């Protein structure tokens, strides 16, 4: 698990915890838990929503840690400027990752699905919150692995499809050279996430 600090943001948004889980066995249950928690009334609803107050992101569609960090940063930025498009900063990360403006599409594509086997679990919070990792482990059944495992998980053809990169000169030109092609795709994807708001 990694922790990133952004002291220039408001305190409650200044610490980011990121863990990569593989061999996730309860994705379907987790997804229905999320859907149900959205409709539950207070006070039990609040407790349940707080128990799963994380961003769950399908790791297959992440090209690099920079990709994920860029989406997280933009989400925090929008929350700090009170211009969130979705309900929470965590769901905003999913919006930032998706090329289009459609919120449900973003959640469907980049969020946890019934068949997700690798998930990034992200918590944006203040420096006070401790034991975040154990909180995550209560919710996700799987193994936390080092973040460089991401290289084995990325589904490059789905990414090319969602970002419509198969027709782009930059990608066509690098066809055949996987390393170069992926670096180019990563750069385009990171840049698209960063500039989505304009």
């Amino acid at each position, binding site marked *: *698990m990694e922790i990133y600090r952004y002291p*220039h943001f408001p305190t409650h948004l200044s610490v980011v915890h990121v863990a990569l889980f593989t061999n996730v066995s309860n994705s379907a249950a987790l997804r229905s838990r999320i859907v149900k928690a959205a409709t539950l009334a207070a006070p039990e609803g609040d407790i349940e929503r707080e128990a799963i107050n994380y961003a769950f992101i399908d790791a297959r569609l992440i090209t690099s840690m920079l990709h994920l960090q860029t989406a997280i940063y933009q989400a925090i*930025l929008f929350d700090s*400027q009170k211009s969130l498009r979705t309900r929470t900063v965590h769901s905003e990360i999913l919006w930032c990752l998706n090329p289009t403006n459609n919120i449900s599409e973003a959640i469907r594509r980049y969020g946890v699905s019934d068949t997700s086997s690798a998930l990034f679990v992200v918590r944006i919070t203040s420096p006070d919150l401790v034991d975040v990792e154990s909180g995550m482990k209560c919710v996700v059944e799987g193994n936390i692995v080092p973040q460089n495992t991401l290289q084995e998980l990325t589904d490059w053809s789905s990414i090319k499809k969602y970002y419509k990169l198969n027709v782009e*000169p930059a990608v066509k030109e690098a066809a055949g050279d996987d390393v170069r092609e992926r670096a180019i795709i990563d*750069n385009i994807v990171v840049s698209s996430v960063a*500039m989505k708001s304009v």
Partner: protein
Amino acid sequence: MSLKPSTSRTLLENSTLVSQGAEAKVYKAYLHQASVSGTDDDGGPVPVLLKYRFQKQYRHPSLDTSLTRSRIAGEARALIKCLRSGVNVPGIRMVDAASGVLAIEWIEGKSLRHLFPGGAEDDDVSEDIAESADEEDEEEDLLTGFYVSRDLLMTKVGNEIAKMHLADVIHGDLTTSNMMLRQGSKDLVLIDFGLAYMSTLVEDKAVDLYVLERAFSSTHPDSEPLFSSVLEAYRVKMGKQWTAIGKRLDDVRLRGRKRSMVG
């Protein structure tokens, strides 16, 4: 009203000012730093270039806000279009249009302006060059340090501009200060798309080239053969579109500044 960059401003305060132009201040900063455990397999924190378009006091505030926002949006859109079309430009790392801040990939290397010292320099480029060395030698040293010949460099320039124009992106401010040679990979990187816009017009592409031609001749004396190499590489990459652009360029040259309209 925005442009009250409280969060981005704090980020700027902890960054190093790299230079200041009329439009923006440019900083070197670090966005994402891991502070705990984990394997450090990427070799340390990665810097970014922050471009902060500060408030212009001489403009009406509401005009300033909307102009800054549209400049940032224009720059970001031009950059992403170039990236998708395979033009060597910095990637975008963060956009905070409300505060006037754009973060792009940090390019380690030197600008072409720096690699080709001109005549009388009035900015700090000349201060970097050791006084003892002959100016001619300095130039060769800088380039051989990069292991790139001038011809090859001009070919790279022509190639990049052609790719950009093929994507219908007009740079708007093509000068040797806005081109960098990246250390290591020797890529020619086009930077500063603040005045860039999209256009399919032959006129706009011809003017873009003309601006570069004039920049070459005014900052680097005896550079006509250099610009010809640029045009040659441009012609090759452009293919069919060159005929129209080349003709237009001749027309544009005729009507440039300080040109006699006689005969």
